[in-house]
């Protein structure tokens, strides 16, 4: 049932470039327009990134403040290889992801030696190193301007406004791939160990799991996928953007998870899409004539998506730690309990069941 619904949803989204449905203000124009595809594509890539971050923070409890760094490494590696070397499209993409993997091994192997808050601080420091290097234009990384892709080196199908739908499909493909991979990983044995670490690392350790290795694996998977997402983002944007390395970008990822619901793949997806759409569209909506007439005290908060997101984020931490996904799941459960749905269905909803039970006890002792 659920896979069918998901496949249907993906098929529908894949048709978006041909849909002339009005965007209702959420999107800049009709759904199939160039502007809307661009906004949706951005939301998909950011959602894929948020899912990789959920593996780290939501599932394993590793709060990194430098996840944006690996995304940026993918972007910058790819764009700079294209711009400054003779590497072709596929070589540049592969080498960029390779660079991300190497950096991820180094940073995480070191940072995971420290625990919890210290891990956050080490990842923060690592991301800042990259932000400074880019800010200072080391290796031609362009300072605040970023680096633009030399478009002649991209495959013809990805260049130009007419081909926006191809880039859109690329972004959608990335999201589907990341989603499926993350769903699968979190239901495997290794995924259960990740959750055990989140709930109680000492207990997982005592049960005989080398938690360091499991943490390193999840960090590597998340960072590598983030690097791939970075490459797609660079194609979508036509450039590598220095904002990706900033502290507020990485805090943005945290906000997405809290908004959507951490420890759930589709929660991360939901949070990221809501976040990105708000951030991209709120300024445009609030600069319209109707809002401009409002007094300052109302207009200023409305025109600042960050402010709205920050306040909503605080309220969610205080009152809705499960995020939007938690609310939806509670509603579904209430409906099922009230209605006459087959009881077996609830167990099939593995995502939810896994999120509520204490995973350490679910793991067979040996």
């Amino acid at each position, binding site marked *: 049932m659920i896979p069918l619904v998901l496949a249907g949803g993906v098929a529908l989204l894949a048709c978006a470039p041909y849909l002339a449905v009005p965007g209702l203000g959420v999107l800049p124009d009709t759904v199939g327009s160039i502007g809307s595809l661009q906004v949706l594509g951005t939301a998909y890539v950011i959602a894929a990134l948020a899912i990789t971050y959920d593996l780290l923070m939501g599932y394993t409890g590793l709060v990194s403040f430098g996840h944006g760094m690996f995304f940026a490494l993918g972007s910058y590696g790819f764009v700079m290889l294209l711009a400054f070397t003779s590497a072709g499209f596929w070589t540049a993409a592969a080498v960029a992801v390779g660079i991300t993997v190497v950096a991820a091994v180094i940073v995480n192997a*070191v940072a995971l030696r420290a625990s919890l808050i*210290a891990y956050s601080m080490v990842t923060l*420091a690592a991301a800042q190193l990259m932000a400074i290097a880019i800010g*200072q234009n080391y290796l031609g990384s362009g300072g605040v301007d970023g680096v633009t892709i030399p478009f002649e080196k991209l495959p013809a199908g990805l260049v130009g406004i007419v081909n926006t739908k191809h880039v859109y499909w690329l972004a959608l493909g990335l999201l589907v791939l990341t989603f499926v991979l993350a769903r699968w990983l979190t239901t495997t044995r290794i995924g259960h160990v990740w959750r055990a670490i989140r709930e109680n690392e000492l207990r997982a350790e005592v049960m005989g799991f080398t938690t360091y290795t499991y943490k390193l694996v999840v960090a590597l998977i998340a960072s590598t996928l983030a690097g791939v997402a970075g490459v797609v983002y660079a194609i979508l944007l036509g450039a590598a953007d220095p904002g990706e390395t900033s502290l507020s970008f990485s*805090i943005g990822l945290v*906000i997405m998870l809290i908004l959507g619901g951490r420890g759930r793949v589709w929660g991360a997806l939901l949070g990221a899409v809501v976040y990105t759409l708000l951030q991209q569209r709120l300024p445009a909506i609030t600069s319209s004539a109707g809002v401009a007439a409002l007094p300052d005290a109302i207009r200023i908060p409305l025109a600042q998506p*960050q*402010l709205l997101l920050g306040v909503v*984020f*605080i309220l969610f931490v205080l009152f809705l730690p499960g995020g939007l996904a938690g609310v939806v799941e509670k509603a579904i459960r209430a409906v099922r309990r009230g209605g006459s749905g087959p009881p077996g269905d609830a167990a099939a909803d593995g995502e939810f069941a896994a999120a509520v039970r204490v995973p350490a006890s679910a793991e067979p002792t040996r």
Partner: protein
Amino acid sequence: MSNVILMIFTGLSVGAVYFLLGSGLALIFGLMRVLTFAHGAYLTACAYAGWFILRHSSLAAGPSIGTLLLALLVGVVVGGALAFLTERVLLRALYQRDHLDQLLVTAGLGFSLVALLNGIWGPDSRAVPTPPWFTRTTTDIFGAHIARGDFVLIGVAVLLLIALEAFLKHTRHGLVVRAGVENREMVRALGIDVRRSFTLIFTVGGAVAGLGGVLAALYANAVNTTIGDTYLLYAFIVLVVGGLGSLRGAAIAALAVGLLQQFANFYVNPGLGEILSFILMGAMLLLRPEGVGGKKIRLI
């Protein structure tokens, strides 16, 4: 030679602002185990508050001493008030929960506060009028021209260090704070309401950050909404290198980071100073998690 002297003073002044923010963070983390991201935003907000007071004086003549003191006072009050409200309204509700939630709330608050300032005054830098004696009058020390502002910043940081040390050593509140840093559970078991110390220390941290914000705005002659983030990152370095709950450690770390930054940037490569500072922080976390302050409590 004059270059070296100049850089020592510049490094010390920058380090002074790092200390103003970092000392608060060190006490807060030491006592409450809360890593706060909000204090960077307090610093920015107070820099704007200071600018708001100062902007009415002319750029050429600069504000009078009275206005300057008023701006500093407003910075302290605004910073303290913001921190007080944060602790009472947001953090109190979360002491029963994970430390992560407390960190997240302060991060969200910082994020929102900076967005609010962006909404009101925009992302562009605003010029801050400073008295001519602050930036333009210099004193010669071994041939180097040192601006008076440098002495003010360094002086304020030293006075603050002395005042905070005296407060911790000679008052009853300070005694509770020191005891709380050592062993919070024991203090609570003795029937002392340690949450009152939390409020106090969080507020003091905010007030000191506010003072730092106004001074940083004066020193740079400008404010914008990103200064808090930048200083916060260096305050984290000061916190980690100095050790939690250790004021002297924070002072040494702030001094070291300020000087390291100036010298590496000038003699080797712009940006290297910042890079070395973050490498220093990473190395400290991994090799000596208790910091130079020397207390054997791990930064877990």
